């Protein structure tokens, strides 16, 4: 490698500070710009509940909430999360009690191998924050960005319907999901 190229490599690998609040806890790290948010969560913060499924932004297994909006964390650089509030699957259960969406996936057996489940639960959390009482069609459309390769969609849809029911009758939980469209 020529000296000029080596210098460029150095500049491009220069680390940037990224401060985030993840599931209510503040973290500060120095990261390379090319580090994807999902790798930051898994490798730097040890939050391995967020899965990597496809690496092509299609499967939704890595879905998390960024300032309340569902986002594929494999399609965002960690540096872009500077100053943002993130919720991952690990932030859903509170005080040892499953979130109603998690409970509904359990009760309705909304999973087979379980690999896609964290992403589905986070996408469902966003969907229900936008539309607390969705029809089956709206659920299917709302989860279009998540793939289940076991093809267990029937029970996943059922789980979201059940969660919608529980959440509309249960006392409101403190959630960090955006209510607005933007």
């Amino acid at each position, binding site marked *: 490698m020529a000296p000029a190229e080596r210098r460029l490599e150095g500049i491009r690998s220069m680390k940037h500070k990224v401060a985030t609040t993840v599931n209510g806890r503040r973290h500060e790290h120095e990261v390379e710009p090319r580090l994807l948010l999902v790798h930051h969560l898994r490798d730097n913060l040890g939050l391995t509940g967020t899965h990597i499924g496809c690496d092509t932004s299609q499967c939704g297994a890595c879905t998390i909430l960024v300032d309340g909006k569902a986002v594929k964390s494999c*399609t965002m*650089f960690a540096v872009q999360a500077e100053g943002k509030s993130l919720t991952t699957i690990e932030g859903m259960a509170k005080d040892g009690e499953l979130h109603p969406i998690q409970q509904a996936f359990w009760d309705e057996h909304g999973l087979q191998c379980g690999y896609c489940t964290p992403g589905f639960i986070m996408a469902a959390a966003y969907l229900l924050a936008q539309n607390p009482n969705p029809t089956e069609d709206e659920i299917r*459309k709302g989860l279009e960005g998540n793939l289940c390769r076991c093809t267990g969609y029937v029970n996943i849809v059922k789980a979201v319907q059940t969660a919608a029911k529980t959440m509309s009758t249960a006392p409101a939980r403190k959630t960090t999901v955006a209510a607005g469209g933007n």
Partner: protein
Amino acid sequence: MIPAAFEYARASSVEEASNLLSKFGEDAKVLAGGHSLIPLMRLRLAQPSALVDINGLKDLDHIKEDGRKLRVGALTRHVTIQNSSTVKEKLPLLAEIAGEVGDNQVRNMGTMGGVIAHADAAGDYPTLALMLDADIVTNQRTIPANEFFKDLFTTALAPDEIVTEVVFPVATGAHKYVKFRRRLFDWAIVGVAAQKMNGGWRIGLTNVGPTPVRATAVEEALHKGAQPEEAAQHASDELDPAGDLRASPEYKKHLARVLTKRAINQAEGRQ
């Protein structure tokens, strides 16, 4: 898959972003929603030397109208466009198209300016911009859409030029976007947009060539009183689409004709 290393800078103004692009040279790219760029970088089909992050430029995230024109800021996310009461009222076809881009997660990040500047042949907004004679406003000038899209992933933008706004005409007549794909979140195999406007039709085609296509032969046939089915036969006139994994050139031409008929019929409330 891990992208190649790059320099990263956050811009706090359009001017600063443009200066950073000049400084980094022509291998630098703007990072907006990142939902085309980051996948390409992960596959290392793109290896920009530097990214200029414009996500902090909140004044580029806006929707304004003055009765004749609808101005959509470059950083406006698809979800905002899809849900905007202003867009639904002044250019409902745009709200419909925004709701058909990708999926919820993609629509939360992807932007108007990103789609326009990326100029993917399968992008949906470029078709609408072209067929409605929209203007692409940059930090340097205003470019009519029919001079903006030059070739596959190639636009009239200079290396340090940044799209700031896309200006559409207000159009509230019959309209429909038919996006043909195998899965809901996919890009269009072929897409057809139809908008009734100023007493005539505007028809635009997605993914049937390196740039979006305005189906003027269909528009003229409709203007002369042809029935949708008859007019739609002209949708493939002069088309020379490239085949890809999903569709052969012949199939794309077939789809252009069939979907044009459907778009016009559905715009007018027929099946």
